[in-house]
């Protein structure tokens, strides 16, 4: 039975088996390869997407579970890298190999959506467990702080 859901704001239907993992459906059938495969067992966070606004690990999410729901992937975070986090990521030059960064950004976006000005502890708490082998953690923290400062700036003013 086909599964219908909203993907980055647009309705899509997939006829992949219901027990297929959303990670592979996104990557191999829908061509959205920005969501990465890192461990396949929910231990690294490289595959993090938003399901109805909440961060979830798509490597453990079965397709049948997303019927009628809304998924956002890194490709849908913004049209043009204009999300405050993407800008901050570029300004802090966060990525090294880059492989973990889609998951890092999606996890961070869910933090700022709920808490626009997190403390450092809140950042580490929320981000912990999204693994980065290149050791970009320090820059990730700084970039989130920078983006939250952008969010916190009074309306009509850019930094």
């Amino acid at each position, binding site marked *: 039975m086909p599964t219908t859901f909203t993907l980055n704001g647009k309705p899509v239907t997939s006829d*992949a*088996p219901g027990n*297929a*993992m959303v990670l*592979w459906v996104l*990557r*191999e059938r829908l*061509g*959205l*390869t*920005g*969501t*990465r*495969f*890192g*461990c*396949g*067992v929910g*231990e*690294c966070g*490289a595959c993090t997407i938003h399901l109805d606004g909440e961060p979830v690990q798509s490597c453990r999410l079965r397709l049948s579970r997303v019927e009628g729901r809304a998924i956002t*992937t*890194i*490709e849908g*975070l*913004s049209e043009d*890298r204009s999300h405050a986090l*993407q800008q901050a*990521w*570029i300004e802090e*030059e*966060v*990525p*090294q*190999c*880059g*492989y*973990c*960064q*889609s998951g890092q*950004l999606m996890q961070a976006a869910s933090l700022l959506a709920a808490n626009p000005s997190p403390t450092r502890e809140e950042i*580490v*708490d929320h*981000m*912990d*467990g*999204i*693994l*980065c*082998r*290149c*050791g*970009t*953690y*320090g*820059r*990730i*923290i700084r970039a989130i702080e920078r983006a939250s400062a952008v969010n916190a700036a009074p309306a009509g003013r850019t930094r």
Partner: protein
Amino acid sequence: MKTRAQSRRTFLRQAGGGLSFALVFGPAGLAARRAGSPDTLDALMGADGPDGAAEHPFGAWVRIATDGRVLIYNPASEMGQGSMTALPVILAEEMDADWDKVRIEHSPVEPGVYGRSWGGGRGRGGSMMTAGSMAVRGYYLSLRLAGAQIRRVLLDNVAREWGVAAGELTTEPGVVVHAASGRRITYGEVAAFAEVPDELPEVSEAELKSPADFRLIGHSVPRHDVPAKTDGSAVYALDVQVPGMLYGVITRAPVHEASPASFNEAEVRGRPGVVGTVRLDYGVGVVAETVEEAFAARDALEIEWAGGARAEGFDSVAALEAYTGIADGESRGRPLSERGDVAAAMGAAANRYRADYFNDYVYHAQMEPLGAVASVNPTGDGAEVWAGTQAPDMARAAVARELGVAVEKVTFHPCYLGGGLGRRTMADYIVEAVKLSRSVRRPVKLIWTREDDLQYGAFRPMSLQRLTGGVDAGGTLTAWTHTVVGDGRGLLASGISIRYYDIPNQRIEMRGASHGVRTKHWRAVGHGPNKFAIEAFIDDIARGEGTDPVALRRKLLKGSPRAIAVLDEVAEMARWGEEPPGGRARGVAFVERSGTLAAGVAEISLDEATGKIRVHRFWCAADGGMVVQPRNARAQIEGGIVNGLSTALVERLTVRDGRVEQSNFHDYPILRMSDMPDIEVRFMPSTEPPMGLGEPGVPVAAGAVANAFAALTGRPLRHMPFTPNRVLEVLTG
């Protein structure tokens, strides 16, 4: 998918006519050739031809389009270290290109053109391997000379056109200027009429820019690859899609190198979506229409493994313990270096020291599991391959060998690497993809799962390091022996030399073992374990002698002012002389790696109930010569320190009954954000040629942490990783 070839052609189509330079690094240094006869980029590249060597037989480093855009080819693999930006920066600097107009593409995989000598500098060319922190170091001079030659050609052309002496012309980024007449002309305008001579003009090192005039080198040009790594668009091998592509997975031998004796071939072939099965020397591959079908079919595999693999029955914990016996044994190993008369100095010593240090196997854990896409021709006499590799030239050659065809028959598309750490200099995963594709005569994406990647990894070898030292009555360290025991040959030897420490009598040797477990270079190679042992032992001696660890190292480094400066710098950064905050202690370490000198200080605390070490701060000072991309260089040192701390604190791979015991990140943890210290990095100002910065952060970490622990508790940590259990044992032992 948009391939690189397509995007390059798009660029060239838009570019119209222009100039193209081919510069060949040959045995006689830098030779130059005109890249074929056509004068326009379109003609040169061929409007629709495939990517690869055939279109431009001599290759080319730079193309200048008439609208001023400059295309620079990057020969290095991009695995996060940033050399795909740093190398073009070096060339663009001497060429005086306008960086805003520069585009970067992967060079074709032609080591004869784009390779470098292994030792760095000029001379023997031919390797495109990105490893050992060698990219910037190895290409620096060659690319500067190449850039200067290109600039000279532009100047000569303008001089001819305007009827002025070339010596009266200067450049600003992207523009040739004749100050006397006030005339200016852009590189793009020059490209419209310029001719490239068959032999490019010779430029000597003396004619290169003075570092004081650098506009790009040392100024942190934004990394080319970063934007695409913030929106998911960067293409790694696992992202590649080609029409008609199938999916392949492989079950590899649970005991390294064991062969499949038999498997339920007919049953698996009959499963839904399965297109074929492939028997390999050390595994069985399955190819299916979808990922899900491939995984499911693999789960259904029942394989009987033939006995006799070397690693059969191997127990790494017992083997590591047995290394002590090898170190105790009479039979001497392979001498690595010998100086003075150790026996005499040891005999005359007032105080003698001895300690054994251990480290377990470590796995690369690059974030992107291995994988590749291969499309072998229906006739089997050629292939197209997409892969992220540290050695595209070797991988291309390995594919050609596998197919029994000439290298030119293999079109290789380098992809971004989701990390390398040394694992991706091997071509095993690429050749596997080719085997699967050949067997089904369709394109195949081979996916290694994390479990595959870990279990059939190739690890940093475990080892024992036995150190002894003798201090004379005057308090001088006069005798030193270091014996490393393990299975890994050269992998064990790197970093064991202490050439910066002035100890007159030394004997360093290696004693082998053989286990049949695959081993491999791992970021900084043997420097990780060896520098841990050496630096921890130096602190052992300092404690025994009642000397300050920094003061003892200063004394030992007396022959090297640069090393002392690095040590002093980090001591100042960490306020070494001052008391750390309550409950914390600091430890120092000094290393050299890839020509760079580095010193680090760790500040730690300890949860005595759980045995968990927390690293709060880490300071690192490094002298790596000129730093081409300071902001990125700091990131490399930071990342190295994180890897070093990760291996010092949590990473541990064990083998039992011949099988790797860990399977994924739940039982093979790597450092997490909550474990991160604040890291501060400083580079010593320098105008010396650049050295490698990708690795020195790794070896500086473990020694500094162990020394901080000893400062805090009075007890030494001698077995990496310093897991909570081991820490508790040391505390109660």
